[in-house]
């Protein structure tokens, strides 16, 4: 029922949607980026950021100002905003938010598992975990000896439990398997998220499903590209491709057979959406495939704000904010390393 969205959405989620649109309006514009690019030192950067929505977020920092401090503070700000949204949300928006945090949780869990295996102290690792991926059982991870212990004791309570069931055959854990585990978890997560959005129907499905399809295909392409010349076999590679994208099933099969970049490009040419992206690789700006994908993701996220009454705005806002953080860190690094040739390689958002 298409009307139900407009009729009932605002009852539960109207306040938050309004809030998130307000936050989106305070993202840095092209003008702001031009100002930042012209800064000479990090102190200048801080002063410029004070005029934007970031305000005085760096006031509590002692000298000297480093790029990592800026990064941490920005992430804390995003986390505060996200927690506010989450705490005020009702079902099914809260489940949606949980799905959004799953990807960070996966990274944190892998980090904690690694640390536990290497007998590192939990406190050190907790500091390095992504704040958006916090879950209550984090400190308990180090008591587990093997992965099955870990799963049974700790992870079964987290939202990640169903994703682990798909990959529980990994009994030994070394470097190779850790990365494979991470990617397999992400694949199950993406597929679960996609199903959730599709089942929800309405505008949310219309907006979120293309975004998630693109994410799935993008992962497939990037995994293929990065596995050329490594020990990863073709069969292993195929198990890492998420199946919720446009490439499923023929494209994924073709990709699994690809041996180099040109073969990959030929696979992409079958799909009208990806052909222009691959053509834009190389070119005059020396863009890599990843840059092109980032740009497309930003485009899709900005377009999400053109429709109302759906959850996609929250997802899009978080992704755009993350991209903005990456841009600011990039500009700050270029400034602090005095390497200004590539300072304009950030991804412009608005």
């Amino acid at each position: 029922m298409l009307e139900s969205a407009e009729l009932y959405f605002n009852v539960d989620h109207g306040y938050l949607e309004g809030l998130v649109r307000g936050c989106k309006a305070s993202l840095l514009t092209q003008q702001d980026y031009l100002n930042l690019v012209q800064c000479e030192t990090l102190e200048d950067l801080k002063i410029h950021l004070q005029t934007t929505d970031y305000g005085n977020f760096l006031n509590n920092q002692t000298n000297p100002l480093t790029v990592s401090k800026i990064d941490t503070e920005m992430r804390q700000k995003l986390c505060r905003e996200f927690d506010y949204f989450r705490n005020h949300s009702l079902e099914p928006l809260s489940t949606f938010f949980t799905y959004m945090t799953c990807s960070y949780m996966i990274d944190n869990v892998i980090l904690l598992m690694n640390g536990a295996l290497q007998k590192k102290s939990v406190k050190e690792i907790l500091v390095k975990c992504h704040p958006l991926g916090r879950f209550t059982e984090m400190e308990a991870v180090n008591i587990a000896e093997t992965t099955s212990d870990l799963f049974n004791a700790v992870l079964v309570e987290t939202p990640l439990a169903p994703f682990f069931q798909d990959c529980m055959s990994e009994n030994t854990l070394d470097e190779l398997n850790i990365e494979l585990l991470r990617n397999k978890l992400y694949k199950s997560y993406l597929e679960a998220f996609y199903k959730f959005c599709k089942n929800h129907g309405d505008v949310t499905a219309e907006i979120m499903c293309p975004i998630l399809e693109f994410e799935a295909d993008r992962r497939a392409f990037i995994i293929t590209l990065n596995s050329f010349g490594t020990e990863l076999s073709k069969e292993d590679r195929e198990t890492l491709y998420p199946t919720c994208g446009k490439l499923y099933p023929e494209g994924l099969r073709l990709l699994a057979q690809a041996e180099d970049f040109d073969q990959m490009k030929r696979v992409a040419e079958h799909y009208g959406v990806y052909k222009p992206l691959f053509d834009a690789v190389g070119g005059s700006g020396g863009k890599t495939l990843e840059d092109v994908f980032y740009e497309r993701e930003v485009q899709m996220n900005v377009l999400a704000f053109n429709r109302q009454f759906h959850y996609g705005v929250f997802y899009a806002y978080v992704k755009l904010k993350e991209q903005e953080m990456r841009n600011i860190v990039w500009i700050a690094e270029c400034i602090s390393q005095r390497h200004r040739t590539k300072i304009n390689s950030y991804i412009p958002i608005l």
Partner: protein
Amino acid sequence: MGCWCCRQWLNPVHHNAGPDQFVFVLAQTIMKARLKGAQTGRNLLKKKSDALTLRFRQILKKIIETKMLMGEVMREAAFSLAEAKFTAGDFSTTVIQNVNKAQVKIRAKKDNVAGVTLPVFEHYHEGTDSYELTGLARGGEQLAKLKRNYAKAVELLVELASLQTSFVTLDEAIKITNRRVNAIEHVIIPRIERTLAYIITELDEREREEFYRLKKIQEKKKILKEKSEKDLEQRRAAGEVMEPANLLAEEKDEDLLFE
């Protein structure tokens, strides 16, 4: 200056006083030999010092070049780290967690320059790249570039380390050699020369003494002789002296019975 065998101060009443001259001449020969030895030694050491200094200058030049290059390479590597972080997110904790064995190791070899052994470091790879799959989902290309850049930086660092250790070792060696050269040139050789000069003066003096003694003896003999001749004249004049029979001048021999 002492005797060459017992270092007792040489004087006429010496335990070796007998063959005095002999001792001095022997000492002189020995001193000459030592002087020659010292001079040869000094020349050889000077050559060694020159060779070391030449190598030293070469190494210095190479160090300056490598350091400049190092600055560039490190800058490039730090920037590629920023690029990789931009695309792949923060992978630093993953990398630090997975460290177990070194992939690039160093062997120390020895290089010989004019007798000075210099250590030379050579790097070699061992084991596979345990970070092959990091960034599989994002930023793999940038990570590969980053790995290459830092690998280059590490190789350059190893080279720089070799050069700097050689530099320090050579510096020590050159200082020692120069000290020796200077010691020989300004202390040992003058000392030997002074000794030699002293020996020569002693020998001359001895000769003069000898000469003088001979002369004195001759004079004395002459006086004695004159005195005895005078005596003889006197006694002859007194008719006391019987000339012994001159066998050769004799015309008549009393003992001959038959003529």
